[in-house]
């Protein structure tokens, strides 16, 4: 029984052993490659480093190990007289870590010079954004992104929708050593950004003045706006809610009718309220004034003439509507100020412009 178990274990262990014997772990290979580089065996060093930088081993590398491997590989290729390969490797290094510099205590000036030459011709930006940002709209909070360029160049930082439509341009201009840009959560019109999935895009222009973007770095943003529950605005006044401000054919007759009716009321008031009483003639003074008033109104009210009383009533209604609108606007502004943005940033994605 125990013999069978031992045999089984040996059978299972054999492929693993064979696999490791073929190359070892990424760390072991790195150690071997660096030793070979130091022994000036650049072919072996390049071979081992290429294995390290190839899946599946490369997936287990951290950023520092990855950049270290690329630096040694670029130097090894240079000393192997493979100039194009060295440039390609250093270009990969710049894209991976724009701020990375070869250690001048390890690598000679010809290597750092070559690297700097490649770096100056490869404009790219590393972007650092906090994974989670929360700020209140009214307190002037911002999402802050720190940009680190490989070389001074012009960049355009923008917020765009998931489908690529631009939402707001945050920054356009040159970037030197580093730059921090801030986004207040609003689009280019000043409105609050809607749509929970947005992109922070940093486009680097080609060195030498070409305006087309050479490379882009995109960071997915999940934008949540909490506490935003605004009131609906009052519906605009309809034509039915407003009185005509110009006289029609019947408006003069209505005035005449009103004056006549009131005059009749004045004359007949004693008969209505005190029947049988002999009333004085003073009521005819008022009745006459009302009749004359109605007549003047009729004569002055031609078709198309302005109706100031209706205009005054309409003005009152419009003012009331405007006050209501202002109240809603103020309330909504207060609610918007109290709303909070929660922005979750994902991992950056580098996009070559030529590949778009």
């Amino acid at each position, binding site marked *: 029984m125990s013999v069978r178990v031992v045999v089984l274990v040996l059978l299972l262990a054999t492929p693993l052993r064979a696999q490791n014997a073929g190359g070892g772990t990424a760390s072991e290979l790195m150690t071997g490659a660096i030793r070979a580089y130091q022994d000036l065996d650049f072919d072996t060093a390049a071979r081992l480093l290429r294995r390290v930088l190839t899946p599946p081993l490369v997936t287990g590398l951290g950023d520092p190990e990855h950049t270290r491997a690329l630096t040694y590989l670029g130097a090894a290729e240079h000393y192997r007289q493979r100039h194009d390969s060295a440039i390609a490797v250093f270009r990969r290094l710049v894209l991976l870590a724009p701020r990375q510099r070869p250690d001048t205590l390890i690598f000679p000036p010809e290597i750092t010079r070559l690297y700097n030459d490649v770096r100056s011709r490869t404009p790219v930006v590393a972007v650092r954004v906090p994974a989670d940002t929360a700020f209140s709209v009214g307190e002037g909070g911002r999402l802050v992104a720190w940009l680190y360029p490989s070389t001074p160049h012009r960049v355009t930082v923008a917020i765009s929708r998931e489908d690529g439509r631009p939402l707001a341009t945050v920054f356009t201009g040159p970037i030197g050593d580093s730059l921090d840009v801030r986004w207040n959560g609003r689009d280019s019109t000043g409105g609050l950004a809607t749509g929970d999935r947005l992109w922070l895009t940093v486009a680097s222009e080609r060195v030498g003045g070409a305006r087309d973007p050479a490379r882009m770095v995109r960071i997915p943003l999940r934008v949540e706006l909490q506490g935003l529950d605004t009131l609906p605005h009052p519906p605009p006044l309809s034509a039915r809610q407003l009185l005509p401000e110009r006289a029609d054919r019947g408006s003069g007759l209505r*005035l005449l009718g009103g004056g006549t009716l009131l005059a009749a009321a004045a004359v007949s*008031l004693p008969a209505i*309220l005190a029947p049988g009483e002999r009333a004085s003639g003073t009521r005819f*003074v*008022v009745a006459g*004034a009302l009749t004359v*008033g109605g007549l003047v*109104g009729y004569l*002055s009210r031609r078709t198309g003439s302005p109706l100031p009383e209706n205009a005054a009533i309409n003005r009152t209604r419009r003012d009331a509507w405007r006050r209501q609108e202002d109240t809603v606007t103020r309330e909504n502004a207060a609610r918007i100020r109290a709303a909070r943005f929660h922005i979750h940033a994902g991992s950056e994605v580098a996009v070559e412009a030529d590949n778009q």
Partner: protein
Amino acid sequence: MSTRCFWLTALCALVVLTAGSLAAQSSLSGTAAGLVQNFRARSEASGVTQVSGTALGFTGSLRFRRFELGVQYAEGTLQPADQVSESRDLVEGALALRFLGTPWLSVEMGPRVRHYATPSGAERWVTWRLGGRVETALVGTSVRGYAMLWRGLGLDVNVPPGSGSTRGGEVGVTVNMGPGPLWFTLGYGIDHAQVRDAARGETVETLTLTAGLRRR
């Protein structure tokens, strides 16, 4: 106009003008006016008595949004038509609380006290009125006509003591002088009271000319 009436008019005007200055900061507005009233009363008891004369007074109002508080005061001397009966001094005051439902319709309620002073004694009529008033434009916004009808919720007379029913109304025309604060009103009013217990009735007609100021 007597000294008392003058001071009351001045006080009313002061209150309204003060309220007018507040109106700039709130929705308070008001009016203050002086009035001249041709007063004509006909009483039927054991016989028929007619008196008439001129009264002077003031009227004013304070309005806050849709509510308005109005006061009116007038006093004068009434002469008998038969030149034999004794003359009377008239003092009349009214208070009304109005609710302006629409720009053209309002309802109001309040007491009105009419006081006759004769050498033989004082006579007082107290009426609680409830009424409605309609208003319409005649010439633009400058000339408006109005009509009002009211009914007495209660009538109380002291000489001889009794109660009864009363009703009345008023029709008139108001002229606003341009955009300024000055306005005039000419109104005809009539009310008829019937004292139930004393089998006595009285009908009063008034023609009132009012001139005043308005603060919005």
